[in-house]
């Protein structure tokens, strides 16, 4: 198969040996349509897509849990999967992991239609998670590794490595019941990375962790990213998502609200926010035609401009009113701002 490809297009030889995706590539060459896709792959940098979700819909009776959802997750990126409770995040993740199947639409993982065969390449930390209460820690981890087809010897050395990494060596032979909730969380995280998956799906990984452990886990996630792993990361914590994510998707009521590269998303919201530090000019800030909202922070004001209002006009008015301005900066909206604007402060987080 490889030889056949060398004749047509020698460039692929590298890809072929690197990705190990022989069948797929071989088929590609055989039809016109696939050939086109093959060239697209080469020139559009599309082979870097780990996960491709296309128009998926999942219904439970009358209720649509996910409706017509599409997005791509690029290889080696941290992808933020955001949205309020009941938005359809867990349902979507379950479809990606192969626990359930979409009614319509398709999900491609590593260039193949998703199936239970691919589960060994995914590490999934569900939001609702637990451990066997009466089983020793290393036995549980061994079991979870075995379910991912990791040979016991390999599993044992990785278990030691990760327990060391999280400072849990001394708990190795304890039962899960003896561990604090935070420790159990870390054990659950270890169980999702033991088989060194290409794709990690972390659903609320920080819930129940104290700040030190949150830092610890953030470091580990950064390490995994630097090793080229793709990480899908679902959370309610917008600040963490902002620090961590390259790309995001925001879901609400079963549908996508916004999505794309984090900086594009932010840019698309425009610079309608101003950080202001000034003495005086208070009456200008009451002008409803210019200003929608004023938030007072410790030493500065955050101003949300009214629709179609001009920042220059505001600055002009402030100067005219005799205010002394020490800071006037147009700023991008935070993810939190976008979340609240798009979904509404009334929605429970």
């Amino acid at each position: 198969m490889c030889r056949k490809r060398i004749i047509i297009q020698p460039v692929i030889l590298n890809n072929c040996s690197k990705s190990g995706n022989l069948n797929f590539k071989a088929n590609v060459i055989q039809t016109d349509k696939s050939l086109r896709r093959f060239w697209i792959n080469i020139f559009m940098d599309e082979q870097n897509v780990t996960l491709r979700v296309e128009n998926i819909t999942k219904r439970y009776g009358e209720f649509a849990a996910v409706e017509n959802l599409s997005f791509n997750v690029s290889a080696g990126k941290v992808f933020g999967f955001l949205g309020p409770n009941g938005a359809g995040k867990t349902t979507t993740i379950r479809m990606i992991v192969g626990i359930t199947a979409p009614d319509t639409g398709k999900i491609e993982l590593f260039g193949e239609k998703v199936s239970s065969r691919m589960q060994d390449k995914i590490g999934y930390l569900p939001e609702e998670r637990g451990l066997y209460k009466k089983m020793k820690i290393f036995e549980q981890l061994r079991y979870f590794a075995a379910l991912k087809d990791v040979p016991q010897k390999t599993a044992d050395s990785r278990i030691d490595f990760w327990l060391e990494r999280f400072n849990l060596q001394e708990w190795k032979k304890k039962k899960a019941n003896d561990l604090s909730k935070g420790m159990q969380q870390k054990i659950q995280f270890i169980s999702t990375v033991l088989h060194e998956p290409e794709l990690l799906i972390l659903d609320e990984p920080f819930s129940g962790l104290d700040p030190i452990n949150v830092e610890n886990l953030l470091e580990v996630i950064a390490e995994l990213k630097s090793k080229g792993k793709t990480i899908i990361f679902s959370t309610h914590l917008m600040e963490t998502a902002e620090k961590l994510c390259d790309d995001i998707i925001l879901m609400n009521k079963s549908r996508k609200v916004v999505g794309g590269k984090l900086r594009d998303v932010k840019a698309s919201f425009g610079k309608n926010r101003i950080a202001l530090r000034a003495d005086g000019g208070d009456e200008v800030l009451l002008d409803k035609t210019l200003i929608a909202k004023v938030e007072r922070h410790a030493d500065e004001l955050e101003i949300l401009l009214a629709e179609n209002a001009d920042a220059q006009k505001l600055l002009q008015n402030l100067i005219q009113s005799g205010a002394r301005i020490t800071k006037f900066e147009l700023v991008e909206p935070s993810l939190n701002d976008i979340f609240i604007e798009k979904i509404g402060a009334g929605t429970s987080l």
Partner: protein
Amino acid sequence: MRKFLAVTKREYKKVVFSRTFLVGTLLAPVIAAMFAVVPALIISVKSDVQRIAIVDQSGNVATRLKENLSLDKIQTKAREAAQDSLKNIDASQKERIETGARQFAGSFAFIDYDASGKSVEQIQRELNGRIQENQLDSYLIIPQNIDSAGVGVEFYSRKAGDFVSNSALEDALNDAILSQRLADANISESKLRELSRRIDLEATPINEKGEEKEEGGGYASAFVIGLLIYITLAIYGQVIMGAVVEEKETRIAEILFSSAKPFELMLGKLAGVGLAALSQLAIWIFSALALLTFGLTQLKAAGIPLSMPNITISSVLYFFIFFLLGFFVFATIFALIGSMVTTTQEGGQFAMIPVVLLLAGFYCTFPIVRDSNSTFSFWVSIAPFLAPLTMPVRIAIETPPFWQIALAILTNALAILGLVWLASRVYRVGMLMYGKRATIPEVWKWIWQS
């Protein structure tokens, strides 16, 4: 397949290395032995020598009675009773206790009392007084006209509840009076014994072809087989349900489902627990067989020959086949219930359904023991859900034609297929449903939706 084996291995180890398994494996034979031995042990605690006064107004019973109550006579009787009890394994509990009593009766000491010329009331008053002063335990008044109808011997004792001594006394008294009556009628005792020898009814079953056949495992062992399957299935069904509920309660299910197919996980669980149940049964059965062989050899050496119940390899094989069928039928039901409820307590209520089914199967074994070839026996031994209990019992009593056994295997294999089909639709959805119990209409929808 590797994942299936990983699940099986974990479930097997979890059950077999648990304290409950160890205790159960060791304790069950002990409990079984206790049912057989304890009643005998309890009455074997010998009572003290009973001090008795015999007032013989008829004048010709006392001598014989005293002779019958002598240590020698009592011991001879005890030996005979011991042999009886072994021959008579099927005897009811009451009979067994009576034979036991004869084996272990205590001895008597006779207190002299001169009753000449005293009225019955006076005798009673005096002897009661002596009992109160603790010079006497009991006394017996044999009336003058012992042979006339409606006249009884009066027995007073402060240990009137000591049925062991009482039954010995009663035996001895009856023997004495009988001897006296025989003597009165000029019949020698040896002649009588010859004339009144009992005939034993030896029940030899005949099979349908009209041939005499060896009695299979015996009725007692048929009953034990039914009980064993019933108990094991009920216990291990609950074990399965507990394990399923644990994975649902602790939310491990979702992690597991992201690693292997739910169906594979469920079957792995059933296989692991099933193997554990088989291990326990095998330990019980083989140790019981070993003990039985040892015990029978010992008895034979002691001069009491008893034949081994007729256990063939095919009957053991059938036993395990039907046990496995039953296990998969009931374990799947228990697993399904576990996946639909939210807590073990809730599961306990719904576990009534399979338990009642099991119990129905167990009760059906009673009519089968009485007549293993009736129409009723035929139908219940091929019915799904019932056959795993009833068919092995039928086989133990008299092996039915092979097509009936095959039919029973087939109906239950089909039942398993149906249940497994149901499980493949309900298990995954149920396991991922948190917070509330699945209602019947919901489950109905899952079955037809996916």
